[in-house]
């Protein structure tokens, strides 16, 4: 029996109702609106302005960015607009400071780049904010505090020194309000523990320790102790000539303070349990997808190299990014990922050219939405992709100054996959390596080469 058109509409409505009931909050696709863009407009990009790290703090109120020049800029969500749904993603500069300076290692005659590789916020314990920032060799703990009061009424000094003979009576200095001043001061410097370049830092859920990982080793630090660190993973072979695998990313579990994972250049993720042994060279669990024999090529290993690994907020899942895809793993199952999303499969036919111009070694990051339902990652041509795990939907958006009208809704880009895309249409200079998602709201920060785009979802 063919349903009548009225019946079809009815069934369709039921379908949507069911879907929205399942979804909970929003039943239709998320639509993203442009909110702000930070950074210079010129096409000529100063090398020092290249954004190299983006991170929201635990409440999402602060957004930190690090650049190649060693500077950190912290944006704060406008407190007045926070409650207004339409312009809640308004962030203004809160503090700017030079985190790392270029250094020169005199013994090795090497220059140490000041580029900020990673920023990680510490959970807030008091009025001040703390973050860890790292370059290739040194990690620093920064305290960002506000000062909006100043003591005034000193007996001897209130501006110029007073002559003590002119003082007839004494007064007690009082705190008077002043213009808000945000100060950033380095509280700890964790140096000289890494022979190779640091690629990751991760704060432990115990709020006392954190890890730092370089190409061959992972060290455990106590936030209060700068003089020493414990080595917990060491994959350096006795003979450097036998080296075939390096560590590319590492992270602590969000809830279990004894669990950490690290990804390698061979596409393998290892989970370590610090309770098992002091040195976690032997992994507790290994996550490796069996190789697809059919699509094997000389580039298979390079494109399988893990560029980022992130636990979900719940701690149940883990996401890894390799060159062409994003994989979601259940941490209880290491045989294969539970979901795989192709980010830019059209690059597969151009791997040789990408190897030639070195873009095949680009390290893209990825991030989870606050509710772990959507994952996001960047690509070339200033595209960034979002994958909705619940609805099995994905969308490609572009971060460009052309879509810059406030509140304008971003139109999803269609990337044709019907035919092979030539390497000429892939702009490898416009890459989005760093993205961040507000932990409690649908606000995202997307970094192009030297601009930071902030988008919010359109509330219906």
């Amino acid at each position, binding site marked *: 029996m063919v349903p009548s058109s009225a019946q079809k509409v009815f069934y369709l409505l039921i379908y949507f109702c069911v879907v929205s009931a399942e979804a909970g909050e929003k039943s239709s696709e998320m639509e993203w609106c442009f909110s702000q863009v930070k950074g210079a407009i010129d096409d000529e990009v100063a090398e020092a302005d290249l954004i190299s790290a983006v991170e929201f703090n635990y409440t999402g109120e602060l957004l930190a960015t690090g650049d190649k020049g060693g500077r950190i800029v912290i944006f704060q969500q406008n407190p007045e607009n926070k409650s207004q749904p339409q312009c809640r993603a308004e962030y203004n500069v809160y503090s700017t400071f030079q985190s790392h300076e270029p250094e020169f290692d005199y*013994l*090795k*005659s*090497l*220059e140490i780049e000041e580029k900020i590789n990673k920023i990680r916020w510490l959970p807030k314990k008091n009025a001040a904010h703390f973050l860890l920032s790292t370059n290739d060799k040194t990690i620093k703990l920064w305290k960002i505090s506000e000062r909006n009061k100043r003591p005034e009424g000193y007996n001897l000094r209130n501006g110029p020194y007073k002559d003590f003979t002119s003082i007839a009576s004494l007064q007690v200095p009082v705190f008077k309000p002043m213009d808000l001043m945000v100060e950033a001061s380095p509280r700890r410097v964790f140096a000289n523990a890494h022979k*190779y*370049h640091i690629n990751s830092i991760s704060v432990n859920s115990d709020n006392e320790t954190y890890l730092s990982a370089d*190409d*061959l080793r992972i060290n455990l630090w106590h936030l209060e102790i700068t003089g020493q660190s414990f080595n917990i993973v060491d994959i350096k072979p006795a003979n*450097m*000539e*036998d*080296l*075939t*695998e*390096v560590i*590319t990313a590492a992270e602590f579990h969000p809830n279990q303070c004894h669990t950490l994972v690290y990804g390698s*250049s061979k596409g393998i993720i290892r989970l370590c349990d610090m309770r098992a042994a002091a040195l976690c060279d032997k992994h507790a669990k290994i996550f490796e997808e069996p190789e697809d024999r059919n*699509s*094997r*090529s*000389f*580039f298979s*290993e*390079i494109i399988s*190299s893990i560029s980022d690994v992130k636990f979900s907020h719940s701690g149940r899942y883990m996401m890894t990014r390799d060159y062409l895809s994003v994989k979601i793993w259940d941490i209880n199952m290491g045989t294969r990922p539970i979901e795989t999303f192709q980010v830019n499969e059209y690059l*597969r*036919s151009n*791997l*040789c*050219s990408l*190897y*030639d111009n*070195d873009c095949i*070694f680009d390290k893209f990051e990825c991030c989870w939405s606050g509710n772990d339902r959507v994952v996001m990652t960047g690509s070339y041509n200033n595209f960034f992709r979002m994958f909705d795990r619940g609805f099995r939907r994905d969308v490609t958006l572009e971060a460009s100054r052309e879509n810059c009208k406030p509140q304008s809704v971003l139109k999803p880009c269609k990337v044709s996959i019907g035919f092979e895309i030539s*390497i000429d249409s892939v702009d490898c200079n416009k890459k989005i390596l760093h993205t961040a998602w507000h932990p409690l709201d649908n606000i995202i920060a997307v970094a192009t080469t030297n601009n930071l785009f902030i988008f919010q979802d359109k509330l219906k």
Partner: protein
Amino acid sequence: MFPKGTKRKFTDGEEAAPGEAPGPTARALSSAYSLQRQSLLDMSLIKLQLCHMLVEPNLCRSVLIANTVRQIQEEMTQDGTWHIMTQALSQCPSDRLVASEVLCRQDPAMLSPKPVPSALERSLQEEGYQEEVVMEEDGPAAPGPPLDGAAYLGPFSSSWDEEEEAEEEEDSEESVSEPEEEPRTEQVFGTFEIKQPPADPALEELFSDVDPSYYDLDTVLMQSPKMGPYDLLESLSHSPALGSTNSCRSDLNELDHIMEIIVGS
């Protein structure tokens, strides 16, 4: 520019036409594939070489490129083409290969069983010419891609290779067996962390002022690429016919210069 980098299965040619000899298409495919593989090998070797010229190479990238080279080498060994290439290498005259007087000096050493160059000589060789290799293309008369991988393998491996004895032996032999080949490209990381050379009185005297605990041999040996890769190419093009004494002298000068920095005079 290049077709997909997919690996053609080894039995493809035979499977294509059962009962017949592999047709011309299969043969053409296979030569296109080898050409592609060869140029990938060349590209990788150049990348490794340039990588090596940097004062602090990106370890992850270097490892991945080295693994790619190793993979190609393994496949070529299986195909038998590796053997052909190394034969061609051992037969080509050393003056055609760029590297130089370093290799030339080794020639008489190659003939003797297990030659052991003195530590000082070895360190000079490594420091002097890890990077002199390669960029010239005195292409062989035989047809092949412009940058002949074979020409690179010899100087390339010898410059990366700390244990030059193994490599020299391979060069002098006509038939190269598989297990011996393994060390050649395996040693790409030799210079990333060079082991301390065996105690040698000349070397020790040279470095007697330096506190060994602070002195990292590998970093000193990597001192030479103070100039960027482009400067080096320029200098190479300006002086194509370096006499053996000239480069030896420049090596010594470099070493002196480095010693000055370390000793702080």
